[in-house]
């Protein structure tokens, strides 16, 4: 074969190479595609549904369509006229037949307490109403119907898309004139819960760092024989079921449990302390569960730090602590960032451990998402709270990706 190649052959070689690379790339994409599609359908679609639920507002719009139409040219400052009340009677009759009055009542109840029973009462009354004027009959029924505010709420609740749940998640609401204002102090709840969630997560992250950093340092600087053995102590809890670890803490922290026994025996306290169902218990149990997540990234960074740097510093006259602080510690920063960020992100979503070890005032935001889904059946509120939590998590996840890189994540 001749060494000099004609331009024609060279071109075709390039084209063939490019084609081969394209095939390779398509094959790689083809390998990833099944999982990509699977995650898209079983994970992303549910989350998108959750997000839409947080602004979805069908109850009033679907069940009181005539009333909503009649309210469309209402001035929103005086009591609506007879036409609106007549429309409401028609709507309520339909709603009674399809048993949806309760649904509308429940929705209005989120904004006016007691509205549900009054709407049910109105529904029953509307079934019996045959002739107008309906306005008078309603005003006689209950003073709820005589308040302009009620109708403003109905009008707002009739919008198909609402910011009500999202605002409520931040303890905000639409005021009389539509401006965003804080809800009354006795109804404020969620801002506290968000602050509590951030507070507990921060405390747990700091605790895991304070306990994990020295341990990682010792493990990284001990001879491999010893450190491998000690590593089992770190990894066994990591592999043990979260529920088992939580159960263990329930047992250990209970009033008749070993810690209280020990405290009494040593005479540190005279009476048994309330350790379980407390903030203290929640933080201790969460720290226990998260410690390996903070420790492992720090440990693997420390393993790569050559002892020569500190040796050099020492030989140049630096003291042991100074050398550690100025030479060694800065090099561990990537590990600290990775570990703490991961722990903080995971802490934000804690549900099971606070639910079992914490008291009523130690519940984090996930608990309320579950509560509003299962007990209160207020799915809009659950979704709005979940949406805000998700947003916070994703922002931190993006930071994590930027700083650490998800492919650097190590398990065990």
């Amino acid at each position: 074969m001749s060494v000099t190649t004609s331009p024609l052959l060279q071109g075709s070689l390039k084209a063939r190479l490019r084609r081969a690379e394209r095939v390779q790339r398509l094959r790689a994409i083809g390998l990833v595609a099944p999982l990509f599609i699977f995650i898209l359908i079983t994970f992303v679609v549910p989350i998108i549904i959750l997000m839409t639920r947080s602004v979805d507002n069908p109850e009033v719009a679907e069940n009181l369509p005539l009333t909503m139409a009649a309210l469309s040219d209402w001035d929103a400052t005086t009591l609506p006229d007879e036409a609106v009340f007549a429309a409401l009677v028609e709507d309520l009759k339909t709603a009674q037949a399809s048993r949806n009055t309760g649904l509308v009542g429940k929705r209005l109840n989120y904004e006016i307490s007691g509205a549900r029973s009054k709407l049910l009462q109105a529904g029953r009354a509307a079934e019996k109403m045959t002739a107008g004027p309906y306005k008078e009959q309603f005003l006689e029924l209950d003073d709820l119907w005589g308040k302009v505010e009620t109708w403003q709420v109905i009008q707002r609740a009739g919008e198909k898309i609402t910011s009500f749940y999202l605002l409520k998640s931040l303890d905000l609401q639409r005021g009389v004139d539509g401006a965003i204002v804080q809800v009354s102090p006795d109804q404020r709840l969620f801002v506290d819960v968000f602050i509590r969630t951030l507070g507990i997560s921060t405390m747990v992250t700091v605790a895991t760092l304070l306990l994990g950093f020295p341990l990682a340092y010792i493990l990284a600087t001990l001879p491999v024989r010893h450190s491998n053995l000690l590593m089992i102590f770190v990894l066994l809890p990591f592999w043990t079921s979260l529920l088992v670890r939580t159960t263990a803490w329930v047992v250990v922290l209970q009033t008749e449990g070993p810690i209280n026994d020990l405290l009494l025996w040593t005479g540190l306290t005279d009476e048994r302390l309330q350790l379980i169902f407390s903030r203290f218990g929640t933080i201790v149990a969460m720290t226990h569960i998260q410690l390996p997540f903070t420790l492992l990234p720090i440990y693997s960074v420390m393993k790569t730090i050559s002892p020569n740097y500190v040796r050099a510093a020492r030989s140049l006259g630096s003291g042991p602590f100074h050398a550690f602080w100025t030479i060694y510690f800065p090099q561990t920063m990537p590990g600290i960032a990775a570990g703490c960020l991961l722990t903080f992100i995971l802490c934000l979503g804690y549900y099971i451990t606070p639910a079992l070890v914490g008291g009523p005032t130690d519940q984090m935001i996930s608990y309320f998402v579950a509560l509003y889904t299962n007990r209160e059946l207020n799915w809009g509120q659950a979704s709005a709270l979940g949406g805000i939590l998700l947003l916070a998590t994703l922002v931190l996840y993006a930071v994590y990706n930027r700083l650490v890189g998800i492919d650097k994540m190590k398990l065990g």
Partner: protein
Amino acid sequence: MMGLPPYASPLERLWRLTLILLCAMVLLFLITPIIAIMPLSFNVEPYFTYPMPGLSLRWYEDFFTDARWLDALKSSFFIALCATALSMVFGTLAALGLSRANFPQRALVMAFLISPMIVPVVITAVGMYFFFANLGLNNTYFGIILAHTALATPFVVITVTATLIGFDQSLIRAGASLGASPLTVFHKVTFPLILPGMISGALFAFITSFDEVVVVLFIASPDQRTLPRQMFSGIREQLSPTIAAAATMLVITAALMLVTVELLRRRSERLRGTSS
């Protein structure tokens, strides 16, 4: 033995000793609660307190004769095995694709595939509860298996990708140039090298599904009661030593898995010559 250089001053030695003592306490903190629960499963009395008046195996007997615990154990095994098998297929294929050279938007795709591990599980659970209700998948084994597969696959992707990082792609080309079909190359070259990562990934996937309780709380009915679900309601309602018996067995399972993964990791490091 303390890992100190010979020129260390007495103050430094003292400090190092303090540090080691401190670390011993942290290790105790990590391990004690898990150990503390185990003897209680042998308590003759139905209490969760020390000292124990006597030893017995009655709670283990209770576990293995109570239909609720046994059904829960069976459900858990069935769901976890199915979810593991599915996530092995999806996860290994994806990891192989991701580790090909110049995969487009690799970091972004990887972050997307790992996200089920990061998103708070309550959000996933509620979303799936809404979505599966439309499809009639709530209160079915199939629904739980799908959900657990989504949660478990990131672990497989991470572990298999990690084994592939040191993987020499020219081995594949060498195999191909010697006339092997892509399938043969996978079978004879790639598979044996990534096997340790796959087994670790499978164990992680299995334990993720086997431990999972939040999604089950939302999308399962009592008919699909799993072991963690049974423990969860047990802790909430009445703390019985049967839970301690179950917990003890789970800790032993975890220990066995940990040892397996550690041995595999060392084998893999030896094979690839990256042992430190």
